[in-house]
């Protein structure tokens, strides 16, 4: 069927809203994004399908990631007349039992596997329908998901559908008001109005640079030629996976955003450049595009108008620099992804020398929501110059790892300690790294900083695309700086001297420091090279590459000095610069370390203090991680 009007769309929407909110029988949503699958969701899904084969009252559905990756596999069960329950860590051995419990109305037996119950599953676009759970009595003694610390501060705009719908069924996207924004814009707005709304919303690019999206669209629309709408799904920042999650959990939100951009800018061809490491995202996009075509929402003469738009998918091949706009467009043309100087911007001459509008996945995913709810609604969230919400991937040494979408302006402390639940194993927070290889490390003293493009830049880091890597006392800041420089040295395209040679020299100096061969003057030399690279590199990779080094020197100079002057690595990471010793007073002689040590380097009598044979020790750290009494010391 080809959709011709909003009425057509609304008719389908009503049918499927019933399926996703109040199904006959029960519906089981299994989180099947890459992270869920890695945690065992596929096996759980297969087991459930086997166990309930032929039972028409049980619908088993795959969904995207709702963000609480720490507790995966996540399984949610709902029915028209029962509470909506989210179960955590449901591997194949538990799933059948959990479903049977739910069917029997028993929420006690498996209470320890319940993450919570939902209060209101609607997306924030659906305020005109009634809460499907309004008439259902909640289960006593089970917390509401919306009130859990992990969720209560979150507002889901870009991720509004992730975890609620089956991404392989466009009808479920319709059910949550998908494509309404696009059809309205198509039938009612002129291009100027679309661009004005985006401008007024204050939306800034979510790919890292934070350039105002409306201004970019307006500039692109001014240039003549075959304009292209391109989506940057290269997500190169190691430790960030927001874009993957949106593409895997709700691909249509990105397609709809691109359609609206195409209407505003005037384009009939789009491209999505996805990194090769995301095969599932590619698969879901291919399916989504096919389905959108079959409903006539992509293709020629969309909904009976003279507007036509198609989307092609192109995959990258493992080059971080291809996330940069000019390199990305070269790569789309099948060439080596080398950035060029931007005397002429890509909005004027980009892909195939034509005007090209490039935005990030999350940027596009925000667009339909802004169009539906209006610019005023969007600007009501955030700070003076950073509006709306931002998705962060909260990873590293943190209790609740996962994806969180928060309003701009929230403090780093709230994200890390309230939502993230703090640092595991009672260890001490040391720093949070934002912005990936182009960003910096932010120490404890700035934790009350509001998260916003400009505030993070003031302390030497950047918002970046949303990677937030939390580090505790066991992370060595010099080693981390070395890690990023090593990464960037491999990824530099090598065409300009400051970046190519600067990174090489920085790596050499940092490696020397980590191996105990640091010299007086090394820190100053790093600063000098960094300043030179910031000034003279051709593209953003080179100009931002020194950030991790310079911020770690700025805030953790003492660690550098300990490495250089005392030949010590206080965090116990740089192997030549520390050794383990057992604190005889704290050691209970339980013998766990002696059993675990692969080298047989630990010895001692039962119930008496043990000791380590330094000649045998390879500093693998297994004893340090394994000791329950904190008796292993880094010296």
């Amino acid at each position, binding site marked *: 069927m080809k959709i011709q009007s909003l009425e057509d769309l609304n008719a389908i929407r009503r049918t499927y809203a019933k399926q996703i909110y109040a199904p006959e029988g029960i519906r089981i949503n299994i989180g099947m994004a890459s992270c869920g699958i*890695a945690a065992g969701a596929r096996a759980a899904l297969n087991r459930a399908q086997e166990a309930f084969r032929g039972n028409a009252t049980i619908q088993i559905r795959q969904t995207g990631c709702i963000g609480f990756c720490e507790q995966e596999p996540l399984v949610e069960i709902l029915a028209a007349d029962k509470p909506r329950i989210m179960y955590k860590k449901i591997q194949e051995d538990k799933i059948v039992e959990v479903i049977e419990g739910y069917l029997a109305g028993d929420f006690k037996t498996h209470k320890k596997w319940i993450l919570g119950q939902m209060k209101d599953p609607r997306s924030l676009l659906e305020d005109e329908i009634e809460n499907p759970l309004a008439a259902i009595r909640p289960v006593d003694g089970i917390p509401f998901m919306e009130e859990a610390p992990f969720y209560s501060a979150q507002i889901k705009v870009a991720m509004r559908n992730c975890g609620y719908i089956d991404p392989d069924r466009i009808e479920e996207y319709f059910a949550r008001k998908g494509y309404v924004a696009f059809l309205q814009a198509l039938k009612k707005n002129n291009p100027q109005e679309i661009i004005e709304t985006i401008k007024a919303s204050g939306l800034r690019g979510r790919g890292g640079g934070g350039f105002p999206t409306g201004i970019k669209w307006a500039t692109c629309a001014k240039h003549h030629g075959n304009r292209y709408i391109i989506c940057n799904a290269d997500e190169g920042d190691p430790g960030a*996976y927001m874009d*993957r999650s949106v593409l895997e959990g709700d691909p249509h939100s990105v397609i709809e955003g691109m359609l609206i951009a195409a209407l505003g800018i005037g384009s009939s061809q789009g491209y999505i450049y996805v990194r090769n490491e995301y095969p599932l995202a590619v698969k879901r996009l291919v399916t989504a595009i096919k389905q959108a075509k079959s409903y006539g929402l992509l293709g020629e003469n969309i909904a009976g108008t003279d507007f036509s738009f198609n989307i092609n998918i192109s995959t990258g091949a493992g080059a971080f620099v291809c996330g940069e706009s000019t390199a990305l467009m070269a790569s789309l043309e099948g*060439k080596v992804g080398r950035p060029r100087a931007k005397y002429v911007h890509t909005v004027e001459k980009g892909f195939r020398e034509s005007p090209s509008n490039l935005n990030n996945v999350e940027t596009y995913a925000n667009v339909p929501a802004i169009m539906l709810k209006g610019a005023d609604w969007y600007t009501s969230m955030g700070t003076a110059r950073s509006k709306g919400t931002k998705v962060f991937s909260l990873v590293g040494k943190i209790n609740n790892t996962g994806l969180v979408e928060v309003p701009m302006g929230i403090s780093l402390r709230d994200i890390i300690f309230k939502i993230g639940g703090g640092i595991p194993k009672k260890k001490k927070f040391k720093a949070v790294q934002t912005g990936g290889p182009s960003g910096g490390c932010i120490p404890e003293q700035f934790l009350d900083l509001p998260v916003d493009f400009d505030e993070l830049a003031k302390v030497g880091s950047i918002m970046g695309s949303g990677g937030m890597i939390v580090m505790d006392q066991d992370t060595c800041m010099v080693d981390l700086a070395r890690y990023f420089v090593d990464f960037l040295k491999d990824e530099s395209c090598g065409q300009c001297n400051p970046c190519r040679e600067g990174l090489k020299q920085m790596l050499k100096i940092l490696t020397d420091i980590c191996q105990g061969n640091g010299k007086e003057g090394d820190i100053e030399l790093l600063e000098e090279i960094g300043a030179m690279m910031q000034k003279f590199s051709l593209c953003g990779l080179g100009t931002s590459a020194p950030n991790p080094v310079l911020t770690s020197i700025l805030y953790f100079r003492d660690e550098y000095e300990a490495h250089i002057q005392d030949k010590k690595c206080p965090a116990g990471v740089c192997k030549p610069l520390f050794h383990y010793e057992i604190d005889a007073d704290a050691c209970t002689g339980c013998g766990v370390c002696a059993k675990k040590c692969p080298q047989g380097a630990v010895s001692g009598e039962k119930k008496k203090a043990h000791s380590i044979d330094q000649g045998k020790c390879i500093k*693998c750290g297994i004893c340090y991680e394994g000791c329950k009494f904190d008796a292993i010391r880094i010296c």
Partner: protein
Amino acid sequence: MNEAAMMETPDAIDYMELDTIIETEYGLSRENLIMILQAIQKRYNYLPKPALTYLATKISLPMSQIYGVATFYSTFSLEPRGRNIISVCLGTACHVRGGAKIHEKLENMFQITDGQTTADHRFTLESVRCIGCCSLGPVIKINEDMHSRIQTDALEKILAQYE
């Protein structure tokens, strides 16, 4: 590359199949070069030289440009790889959770370094920078299977599943 891998006779190239990839799937377009190379690598596990020479004439592109692209992007391999590809994530999130220790352990187990293949062709060890499962780090991927929250002592059991 180690010697055993070098001595192996190269795969016979199926040119009919190459035609399907280059013409039918990718319409002889130079813009699709990267995706054509990906398809060839998927088929042969690496980029065999004769296939590249053939591709160069088919889409009239100098060999130097094809090599340029094949060596610029890190997913491409110009040498044969093992039956199973182990990708150890060394992305930042995995790094701070001990990804390097996993990599080191694998290097020691197989007596090979990053990018090399074991003499029996069972495994190729590669490092990657983030596969998007950062919340479950450290992560390794073997062929298409993701293994999360890896601890060094669990490696042998995981590897035993792959012949």
